[in-house]
């Protein structure tokens, strides 16, 4: 029997497993597959700030004061900082260093040339901070379907950020059935001759640019050395821009977690879909994982649910409009009928913070106590040895608030402590 079973191998689950192990517990991670590390952009958003409130701590204080049911308010901002500290512990040995003073947000460019706020970003993203002035050269491989440097630069330019776009030849992506996902490109960049060629081409075309932005494909397994080398060869800071999935920065993070957990002797078991939990009174006795022959029961003192909400599969839905927490059938905070879940307009303009009406569905999830135990509408704890972390939680809108990463950082820490 384990001390802790974590269900879900997304960032919330992985961080919770790490923290639990660090506290000396015997931990096992069971997951259906790889989680949202592989679709995350790479930066860490904590909360949008506005013209009115530029200070991140100020925004957080204000937010938690006015949103007492929000995961930040429940877990406490201290958990957020401790979660960040734990993340650094995981990432440093893997050569990923996060940059950001946590006083004000970075403003980072997207692949489309829009802007996004982030509290922290990997150092390979940092030079893209638009609050820092400097001519930008956006560059990408010619003919690569997942990145368009001129489009990006033009959009940045019309927002007042001086930018130019250029493509560089990359014949390797045109040979037969080459892997044209970002991962394939990342592996190419790990080859010194290719870096040399790209750097040479771009260096000759810098003409005044003080930094160069590339899609986030600057190495995967040997990312740190790849990025440093490219920067050296170019002679100016190089920054990455997040791409369509699969996310290379996310994969770097996943690998960092994988190594940290392996060092700690924590089994990370994929394709182990938990079909249901074992409920014994108000406790979870364990979880059931069906395999081709039979059902196996895994028992633990504590079960941490980091199953990811509606996208992750932690909450299931059907055509009758029924929503269900997949493992223990925990009560869910459901916004009305299916007709109420979504607005007719897909994207509402986020010109100011808070954003335009979010789709109500984003707030759906499991309600918890301050210690991340699931509760019913009256606030009574339903299962005392279960903790919930990440997207499965109710009461927050990651896209509208810009809080996606902050919430898993804070709640993974809280759930595992």
């Amino acid at each position, binding site marked *: 029997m384990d001390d802790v079973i974590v269900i879900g191998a997304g960032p919330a689950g992985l961080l919770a497993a790490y923290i639990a192990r660090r506290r000396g517990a015997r931990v096992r991670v069971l997951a259906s597959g*790889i*989680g949202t590390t592989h679709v995350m952009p790479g930066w860490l958003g904590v909360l949008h700030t506005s013209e009115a409130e530029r200070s991140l701590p100020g925004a957080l204080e204000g937010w938690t004061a006015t949103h007492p049911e929000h995961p930040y308010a429940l877990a406490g901002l201290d958990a957020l900082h401790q979660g960040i500290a734990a993340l650094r512990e995981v990432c440093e040995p893997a050569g990923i260093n996060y940059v950001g003073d946590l006083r004000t947000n970075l403003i980072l460019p997207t692949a489309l040339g829009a802007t996004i706020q982030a509290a922290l970003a990997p150092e390979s993203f940092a030079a893209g901070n638009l609050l820092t002035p400097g001519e930008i050269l956006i560059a990408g491989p010619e003919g690569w379907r997942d990145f368009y440097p001129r489009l990006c630069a033009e959009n940045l330019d019309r927002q007042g950020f001086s930018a130019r776009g250029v493509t560089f030849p990359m014949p390797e992506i045109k040979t037969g059935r080459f892997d044209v996902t970002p991962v394939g490109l990342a592996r190419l960049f790990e080859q010194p001759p290719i870096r040399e060629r790209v750097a040479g081409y771009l260096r000759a075309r810098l003409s005044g640019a003080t930094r160069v932005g590339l899609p986030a494909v600057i190495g995967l397994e040997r990312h740190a050395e790849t990025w440093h080398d490219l920067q050296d060869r170019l002679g100016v800071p190089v920054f990455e821009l997040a791409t369509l999935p699969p996310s290379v920065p996310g994969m770097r993070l996943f690998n960092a977690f994988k190594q940290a957990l392996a060092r700690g002797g924590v089994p990370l078991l994929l394709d182990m879909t938990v079909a249901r939990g074992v409920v014994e009174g108000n406790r979870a006795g364990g979880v059931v994982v069906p395999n081709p022959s*039979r059902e*196996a029961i895994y028992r633990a003192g504590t079960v941490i649910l980091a199953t990811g909400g509606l996208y992750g599969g932690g909450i299931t839905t059907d055509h009758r409009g029924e929503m269900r927490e997949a493992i223990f059938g925990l009560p869910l905070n459901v916004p009305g009928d299916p007709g109420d879940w979504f607005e007719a307009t897909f994207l509402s303009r986020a010109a100011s913070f808070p954003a335009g009406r979010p789709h109500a569905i984003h707030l759906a999830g499991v309600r918890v106590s301050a210690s991340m135990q699931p509760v019913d509408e009256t606030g009574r704890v339903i299962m005392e040895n279960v903790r919930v972390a990440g997207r499965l939680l109710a009461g927050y809108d990651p896209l509208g608030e810009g809080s996606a990463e902050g919430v898993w950082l804070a709640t993974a820490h809280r759930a595992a402590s």
Partner: protein
Amino acid sequence: MTDPLNTVYFPVTAAILEDIKRTADLCVKCNICTSACPVVPATDLFPGPKYVGPQAQRFRDPGMPSPDHSLDYCSGCGVCTLVCPHGVKVMEINTAAKAELRKRQLREHPLDRHQWRNWLLGHNELLGKLGGMVAPLANLVMGFKPTRLLMEWFLGIDRRAPFPRFHFTTFRRWFFHTHQRGSPPALPDAPKVAYFHGCATNHYELEVGKAIVAVLEHNGYEVLLPEQNCCGLPMQSNGDFDGARRYALANLRKLGPYAAQGIPIVVGGTSCGLELKSDYRELLGIHTPEATLLAQQVYDIHEFLWLAHEAGRLKTDFIPQDRYIPYHTSCHQKLHRIGQPALDLLNLVPGLRVEEMGFDCCGIAGTYGYKHEKYDIARSVGQPLFERIAGTGADLAICDNETCRWNIARQTGIRVVHTVQVMAEAYGLSPDNRG
């Protein structure tokens, strides 16, 4: 049992694709499978599991020839299925589609040397029998470079592919003629366990079988050896689903009585075990009560021993070791969805430091790496694993699956054994004791 060949299951173009089609429906195009596939970075000829799997599946009409080509480079390792967060059975979709592709290739190019090769590789059991009959000669010939060159030219079996050694005798003959005669009878209340050894143990790796028998008997089990034949996986993975089905139905007949009596059937080979547990139903479309009953009684040997430990039945009288051994978990082991019982078992041996190497696939993927056009891809896939193992400086490594063991041994030059062989040694059950 009435003749089931034509009546109790649907032809391959219907029910099987039907089941697998359902999971293709779940794909959200995230490409996580492509990012994890070990073959994709090793070659330009494979566009990735998502492309040949759930993506192309939407364009395959069961009534028309399959328009695929690049699908052939899927190795069937299953890492894609492992990592998919939405439950798409990517590898299984690819395997079923490959069967259709092979059928078409057979129709269009019946005299193609690759057809002969695939047939040979699919008839693993027969190869073992024939080779075994003239074992010393066969081994000599197979070790002879010109033979291998000829095999490569005429059949497309790469000259470097890791062939095991043939033996005169078989594991079964040893069990019945040597072991049973030389051992005291089992105790009357000893729990029974049936052992499915598979072709590789029977013909090539008798020591694995001997170790498994020894460990089981040491723990008080009476080991039975049912009539059995090749599980059918080599045929299946070479596209001959009909042939695989014949083998499957034969095994169901032979093993059925044991399953019906509730006797657990332990399997030493990871891939064979997966075939019996899962592929008979999911891929070959044999949805009979017998197939289900069999699956319910099949245990991977590590799984079985660990469950015995959890029930307090496993002896832990191990001789303390002071040893470091690198371990490779085969890709198919993870598809059993049983966790890592081998590592848990080895952890019981005091002083034994076993380190999982952390790679998804050694490249050989059953018969994939034997094929000339795929050998280099396979080696490229396994290269990081070989380097890491060699870098540990260990003189022994463990892997749960047979062709993987031969592959790693060939590429690293060190001896590679089955978990249970290490356990047997730790129990002090020397090769003589196992006599």
